């Protein structure tokens, strides 16, 4: 690899005289073939150079002109016309940018307005009103259940029936349910009592 690099540097006349002399002394037949190949490549490149130069000479000037930092008229190179097919009409930036900005702003404003006006959902962890479960008898509550704080039902329900807001069953199981009574309902607290004979009476 370094040998090839040395040969390329020698071909490009980048070696010092001492290095060039040393390389000249150590050239093998293979090295001479490589140098000959480089010469041929160079000939090909040089043959194509005028065409390539003519093709790309004006690109930089065109880019600068498009950026508004340079004037095409002051370009020193020959003007190159690149055929890119049918030319689309290009809109001026000054007209398209406000429309895009306006659209984005309106979208953001609409999103903000929607977010602000949307009613917030109740917290999922909020317990369901126990009064709603009154329609049918509920499962007995554990005897060790602590005092249950029951949220207030809607006013229309409160008008139809009394509302049990908290209950502590103590050591025995119990349940809460509603019993229909005509148009209204009556809340019931049902306690599971021991049979009278089995109850330990105080001494």
């Amino acid at each position: 690899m370094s040998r090839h690099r040395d040969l390329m540097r020698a071909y490009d006349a980048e070696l010092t005289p001492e290095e060039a002399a040393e390389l000249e002394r150590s050239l093998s037949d293979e090295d001479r073939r490589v140098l000959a190949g480089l010469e041929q490549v160079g000939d090909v490149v040089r043959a194509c150079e005028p065409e390539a130069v003519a093709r790309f000479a004006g690109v930089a000037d065109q880019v600068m002109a498009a950026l508004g930092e340079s004037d095409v008229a002051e370009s020193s190179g020959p003007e190159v016309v690149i055929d890119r097919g049918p030319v689309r009409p290009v809109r001026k930036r000054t007209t398209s940018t406000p429309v895009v900005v306006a659209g984005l702003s309106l979208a953001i404003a609409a999103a903000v307005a929607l977010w602000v006006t949307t009613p917030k959902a109740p917290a999922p962890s909020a317990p369901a009103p126990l009064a709603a479960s009154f329609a049918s008898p509920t499962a007995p509550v554990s005897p060790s259940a602590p005092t249950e704080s029951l949220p207030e039902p809607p006013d229309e329900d409160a008008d139809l029936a009394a509302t049990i807001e908290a209950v502590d069953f103590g050591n025995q199981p119990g349940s809460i349910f509603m019993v229909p009574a005509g148009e209204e309902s009556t809340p019931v607290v049902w306690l599971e009592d021991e049979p009278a004979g089995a109850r330990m009476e105080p001494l």
Partner: protein
Amino acid sequence: MRARCWFLLVPALLLALPAVAEGNKGGKAPPARTEKPKDPKAKDEKRPAEVELATEVMVLHATNSGKGIDSAIGKMPELKKPPFSSYDSYALLSKTRLPLSKDDKTMTLPNGRVLKTKLLEVMPDKDHLRISASINQPKGKTFLPLLEVKAKVGQAFIVAGQSYKGGILVLVIRVVK
């Protein structure tokens, strides 16, 4: 010039829309919760109401003795609905009026336990009130340590299930004036 107008108009819109939306939200919001009147006169008005209010406690004895529902109980459709309908006889053992006040009012039940009622609060609408009830066993453990009920005059709640003489006790507690 036209582009400059756009650049001025768009931020103005951006700022104005949420403000308008917030305004609408305020319009839709429910009215502020009515706070309890702190007027001392309101407290004075509550006093007579407390004095007038009471709980009427009907103690019923539910059995399956085939005697039917005591006519003294009055109209109580609940007794014909489950689970009360599992007993075919209801006898009125007592009907007691306990004045509602901030102090405990007690009555002794047929099984020896003591029912205690108390007025917790008269609601701001002066129509509803919160009362508490508990059932204690003298010199024994508390049977029903706590029960808090919100009701208005005429409404009742039932505490049932205490064993008594081959049946159960059914306490019908109604707020009355």
